[in-house]
């Protein structure tokens, strides 16, 4: 194995009729890893995948695949496979021929007995062997995506590009197929770039994740890295469930003051901020915030604005003077809509972000040693 990453994207730019989809996107996917690209709709996920496959013409930037510059190379020569969210199966072919599709192409042709062997084995793996002679329009959504994954898998490509492959499926099916993808990955040591807008899906499947928004990768790393040191406000908003809590705050005489809140946090807990003071955003992972009875000593006051039942736990939305946040609490907490409460932020739990640019300005590193 060479030291080169499997996929390296440098400064990709792409506009569609004046709308900028990719704005200088950089991304590295290592060999044998599942890399999840997590971002909202319109963030540039699909364009990133299409660019990696060579299916769109870039305005600028370089695509390197397995150490080779493929920016101008044909999609057919790149040896990647792609699975889309919706349309994947060619209606003019049956299931078997859809799976065997690549193996009959000029670029990846195999002998027919080899094709039959591989198609059979892949169909076994994805538990669709009983569907092989079916017409594709008789399949359910889950079966379709299995067939699509089988077609990608049967060729053993260098890189799998999965564009929200499970988003159209219901929750149970999605979790099942996700686990299977993980299993297949373990078995084949394949490299996957997996685009999704589903936070749980991303952290469940990925070795590393990249947070994408506005046509740029905002941060990439393991989920622990990102939790330990989120790069900016966008990352905070997209990571976590519920996402990071943000409070309007000010830096004054060595302390961080949250607007409308009693609690003051010493700046020493933030590892230095490289500037004197002024308006900032204080971001805290909801898991770190303590919610307690009203008027608890050393805490700030808020109120419960909404309560979501989640079965064995519930999510509450807390209104405060500096902003509102959501947090998961145990069922036993007894918090109800309209209740007064208090919240306390541990002194070294927060991150400070520039109020205007959204970039993180505090320098602490909370990575476990």
């Amino acid at each position: 194995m060479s030291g080169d990453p499997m996929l390296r994207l440098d400064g990709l730019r792409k506009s569609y009729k004046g709308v900028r989809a990719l704005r200088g996107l950089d991304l590295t996917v290592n060999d044998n890893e599942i890399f999840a690209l997590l971002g909202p709709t319109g963030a540039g996920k699909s364009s990133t995948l299409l660019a990696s496959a060579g299916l769109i013409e870039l305005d600028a930037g370089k695509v390197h695949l397995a150490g080779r510059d493929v920016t101008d190379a044909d999609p057919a020569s790149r040896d990647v496979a792609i699975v889309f969210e919706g349309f994947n199966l060619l209606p003019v072919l049956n299931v078997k021929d859809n799976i065997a599709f690549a193996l009959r192409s000029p670029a990846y042709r195999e002998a027919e007995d080899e094709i039959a062997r591989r198609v059979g084995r892949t169909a076994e793996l994805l538990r669709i062997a009983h569907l092989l002679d079916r017409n594709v329009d008789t399949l359910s959504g889950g079966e379709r995506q299995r067939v699509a994954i089988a077609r990608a898998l049967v060729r053993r490509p260098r890189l799998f590009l999965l564009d929200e492959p499970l988003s159209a499926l219901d929750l149970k099916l999605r979790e099942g197929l996700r686990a299977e993808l993980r299993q297949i990955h373990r078995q084949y040591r394949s490299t996957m770039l997996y685009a999704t807008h589903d936070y749980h899906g991303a952290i469940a499947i990925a070795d590393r994740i990249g947070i994408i928004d506005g046509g740029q990768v905002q941060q990439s790393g393991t989920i622990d890295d990102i939790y330990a040191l989120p790069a900016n406000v966008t990352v905070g908003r997209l990571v976590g469930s519920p996402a990071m809590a943000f409070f309007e705050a000010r830096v004054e005489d060595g302390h961080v003051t949250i607007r409308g809140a009693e609690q003051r946090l010493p700046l020493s807990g933030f590892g230095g901020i490289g500037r004197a003071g002024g308006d900032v955003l204080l971001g805290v992972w909801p898991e770190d915030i303590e919610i307690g009875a009203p008027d608890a000593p050393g805490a700030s006051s808020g109120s419960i604005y909404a309560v979501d039942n989640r079965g064995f736990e519930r999510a509450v939305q807390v209104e405060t003077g500096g902003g509102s946040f959501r947090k998961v609490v145990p069922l036993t907490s007894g918090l109800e809509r309209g209740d007064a409460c208090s919240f306390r932020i541990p002194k070294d739990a927060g991150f400070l972000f520039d109020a205007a640019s959204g970039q993180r300005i505090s320098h602490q590193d909370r990575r476990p040693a």
Partner: protein
Amino acid sequence: MNPTRTSAMDRAGRWLVLGLLVAYTFYNVGPIVWLVLSSLKSRMDLFTMPPKIFFTPDLTGYQSVFGVGVAKDSAAAIGVFDSLINSIVVSVSGTALAVFFGTLAGYVCSRFNFIGKGDFMFFVLSTRMLPPVAVLVFYHLMFARLGLADTRFGLVLVSIFANVGLATWIMKGFFDGVPKEVEQIAVVNGYTRMYAFLRLVLPMVKGGIAATAGFCFIFAWNEFAFSSILTTTQAKTLPVKISAAAGSTGIEWTQICAAGVVLIVPVLIFFYLIRRHLLMGMTFGVLGRR
């Protein structure tokens, strides 16, 4: 509500619908039945009042239009056989070529962006807005200079021109209904774009091609204005021939009716041949994104 009253109202509604359908069918089919019956009547029976429903079929009308049997060499026979062949040659080749070019152009307009695409699409559409009468004279002059007047080849050119715009627009609609992922899947899996177009996309729009061919064929078959001006003897098409069907003994009604039936039959045959694809195509691009 009382169940018996519901069923009574139900029945009344049914009878109403049935009555409307019968009236509508009569309105549509009546003239054709009359035409077919008249074409089989003798000259005597044709003018009998009230019209005879039962009569001895007389094929002289058909013999006359084809110039065979007793009507052979008769001065009264208008003889439409040559024009029938002209019409078939012009309509079939005109339709085939218009659909061929329209399919290619429709695909390009559906899938690719090029400078002036919107203007191009409007220009293509505008070719169908033009009333033929406005340009007839100039066509006549051009065709005369180019030696295309009164030739089937010239009429085929006109037929392509008249239909390729329509074909382009309809086919663009059908191609728009084919997800672009089809081509993407093909090229990522090692096929060429051309393979994707010919072997994957085209089969998905074959209903659309049939529907487009149907439209173009009807227009080409019924085309009158250009054919009447641009032909004199050799290349006259059937509609033109029939409109001018007056023999030496006045207006030959039996012959005109027989020729009218001859005019209808090829259209029926054509639609019978493409009927299987038509139902699919008439739903206009509802391919379902699968």
